[in-house]
């Protein structure tokens, strides 16, 4: 658990972060979202004391971090950065082993853990003896992730972790990232300026502007209950796509017609509208079989899906 209490940071005359407070629950992923210069990276770096706050306090698992040795504090926090920051003079294996070595793990333990991680991150065994410049951007970021995860820290900080990747690679790594078991048990704070990415990965989003926190909430809350104009406008350009991603079949369940019973494998109602539309587009099926929480199954086609979604939207606005 991470808690920030009114932390502020000034660079010269600019107030980079202005009394930011939030709490990240255990195993939760909080995404700091905003334009560049909004103070999100500064906020992140104050959590592992790469930047010391001018005012306010940071607690990790209930402990005030200013009372800890910064080097010891940092060895206990995983850190993934935008430019990956792998050591160019270390092999992949040595890069991954940096923190374990600082913690004086024995060689065998490091080896076993490294093997385990690269398997999970889909890296090949022979890449271990390679140098970072011999790897592709995506592979490098996997190594960066492995380096942060190797000691299995409970807290993980990520600064634009996919920022250096091309679109195709980014999307696939994001998917893997989401599915990674190791990450599901971590408390994560991640910085991004990419709204899609934030909505894809966040449990909650913290929207920042000019050093201030504008709104903290689930993606759905940000979409449907923006606190002010800034929050509304920030998402405006991609609103529809985001809504398709946020809204799940389950949400529009009441607006879907009760369809005839059909045989076959049914999909979970956890599926979002975007994915459902993609399935209908890509397969030759004209209908999807979805089973809801009430054990009831519905067969829906593209028009029914859109209609249900529209009805849901109207209901939100009137709420």
């Amino acid at each position, binding site marked *: 658990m991470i808690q920030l209490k009114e932390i502020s940071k000034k660079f010269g005359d600019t107030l980079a972060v202005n009394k930011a407070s939030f709490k990240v629950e255990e195993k939760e992923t909080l995404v700091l979202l905003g334009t560049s210069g909004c103070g999100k990276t500064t906020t992140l770096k104050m959590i*592992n004391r*790469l930047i010391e706050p001018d005012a306010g306090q940071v607690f990790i698992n209930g402990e005030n971090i200013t009372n800890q040795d910064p*080097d*010891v*504090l*940092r*060895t*206990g926090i995983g*850190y993934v*950065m*935008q*430019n*990956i*920051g*792998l*050591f*160019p*003079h*270390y092999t992949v294996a040595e890069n991954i082993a*940096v*923190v374990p070595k*600082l913690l004086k793990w024995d060689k065998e333990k490091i080896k076993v853990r490294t093997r385990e991680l690269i398997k999970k991150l889909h890296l090949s065994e022979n890449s271990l003896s390679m*140098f970072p410049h011999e790897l592709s951007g995506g592979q490098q970021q996997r190594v960066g992730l492995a*380096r942060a995860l190797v000691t299995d820290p409970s807290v993980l*900080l990520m600064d634009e972790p996919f920022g250096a990747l091309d679109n195709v690679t980014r999307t696939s790594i994001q998917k893997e990232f989401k599915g990674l078991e190791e990450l599901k048990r971590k408390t994560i704070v991640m910085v991004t300026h990419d709204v899609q990415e934030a909505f894809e990965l966040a449990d909650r989003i913290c929207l920042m502007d000019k050093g201030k926190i504008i709104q903290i909430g689930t993606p759905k809350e940000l979409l449907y209950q923006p606190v002010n104009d800034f929050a509304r406008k920030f998402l405006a350009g991609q609103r529809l796509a985001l809504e398709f991603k946020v809204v799940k079949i389950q949400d529009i369940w009441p607006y879907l017609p009760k369809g005839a019973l059909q045989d076959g494998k049914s999909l979970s109602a956890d599926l979002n509208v975007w994915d459902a539309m993609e399935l209908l587009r890509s397969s030759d099926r004209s209908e999807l079989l979805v089973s809801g929480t009430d054990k009831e199954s519905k067969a829906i086609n593209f028009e029914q899906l859109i209609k249900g979604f529209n009805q849901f939207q109207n209901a939100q606005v009137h709420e």
Partner: protein
Amino acid sequence: MNEHQQTLWQFMHEQSDKLFAQTLQHVGLTFISLLFAIAIGLPLGILIARKRKLSGTVLGIAGVLQTVPSIALLGFMIPILGIGAKPAIVALLIYALLPIIRNTYTGIIGINQHVKEAARAMGMSKSQILLKVELPLAMPVILAGIRTATVINVGVATLASFIAAGGLGEFIFGGISLNNTNMILAGAIPAALLAIILDALLSLVQKMDFKKLRKALYVLPVAILILGGFYALPSAYGSSLTAGFTPEFMGRQDGDLGLKSIYGLKIHTIVISDAVMYKAAFSKELDVISGYSTDGRLKAFDLKILRDDKSIFPPYYAAPIVRDEALKQFPQLAETLNLLAGKITDSVMTDLNYRTDYLHQTPERVAKDFLISTGLYKAPKNGHNGVVRIGSKIFGEQYILAEMYSMLIKGNTDYEVSTKTGLGGTKICFDALMNDQIDFYPEYTGTGLLVLLQPDPKIAKEMAHDKDKTYDYVCTEFEKKFKIKWLKPIGFNNSYALMMLQKQSKDLNVNTITDLKNYLDKN
């Protein structure tokens, strides 16, 4: 050309022992100073990379030191550190400093910020970041600095021989003062090769990838240390006494070569420039030095000449040489100049030189005092019976003699005198005489024989050790060849000599060169 190369090869072959020792010393000097330069420059570079405000000052100072001419720098070192290895190493290290500091600094500040941040974020301490991240990543740039410093050092180390620190400069500068091209090349070619080879080797290290570089970095300090250790090798076999000889003396048959072949003298020898030699002997850094037998510094530093009992140093007896024409024109001249014959012994001349060189009395006063004390001085007659033109070479002894002759002529004859003193060297003086610009000047028999007549080496060798034979030979030959007469010798002999502090000579009971050899053999 072919013949020339062969003789160079022969020279190097003959002198291979010395060449090897000098090369070792040269490599040693280069690397000892490099080691110290790294030991100082690397931390300084790291410091200014941490505290950027200091960088301007530190790099500025190192830059200014770099621009001090190398000979001047060596000169500054002598009063502080004396002669020998210490000042040479310090001077070299000063030259090596700038490239090492500057490259360490630029290497470290040039490292990608994200890599440094990653290191911090993973919990590395400052010293861990320095050792594991910054230094390894800056290493190619630092190595480039070390490479530059090494090449500079190989070049500057040739100057170390000026202050008795050895190295290939001994051959180069010995060759220059002896006008011996082979000797110059025997020093210059290995020095150039050293620079090229070391540069190539270090460029290989510099271009290695990180994997190989890591291994190389373990080897490099050891290699530098071992190469630096070479410097200690040649001086390791030594003798109980140390000799300091000028580069010229080292290369002459009537010098170190003769001492070795005729006396069988085995003494630990360092090569040193004339200017610092006497001081070094006086401060007991040197026990035996080469010098000139009438040098005023003999007296100034209380030195004793060791008798040349096997006469390897040819006699250099001084006597006026006069054009036959002038003798005819001035009938009283020969008689007047001969008034001085046999009057000035070695010790008297030394004393007179001491008074001009060290007490800074004018040659005129020294000459007058001497003539008065020997009863030769007469008041000028102010006659107008023609002008006698006196020449002299450009050192103290010759000025004094010219003054004496001037006073004798004015006091004893009706001739007027004009003096043309300070003529550059033997060649200029002699040309002036031959071309009727002067009528006479004092010359030395050895110079007359070896420089002006240059007879067949066999003839020269045969008579060079006999003062009467030499005198007779130059008398007849000069008359025959140049129509110039040698008058009677003045008495002193200004030849090469080995010298030792009076007190030490007494303590060790060493009075001749043979004594010295026997002493060295026993101890």
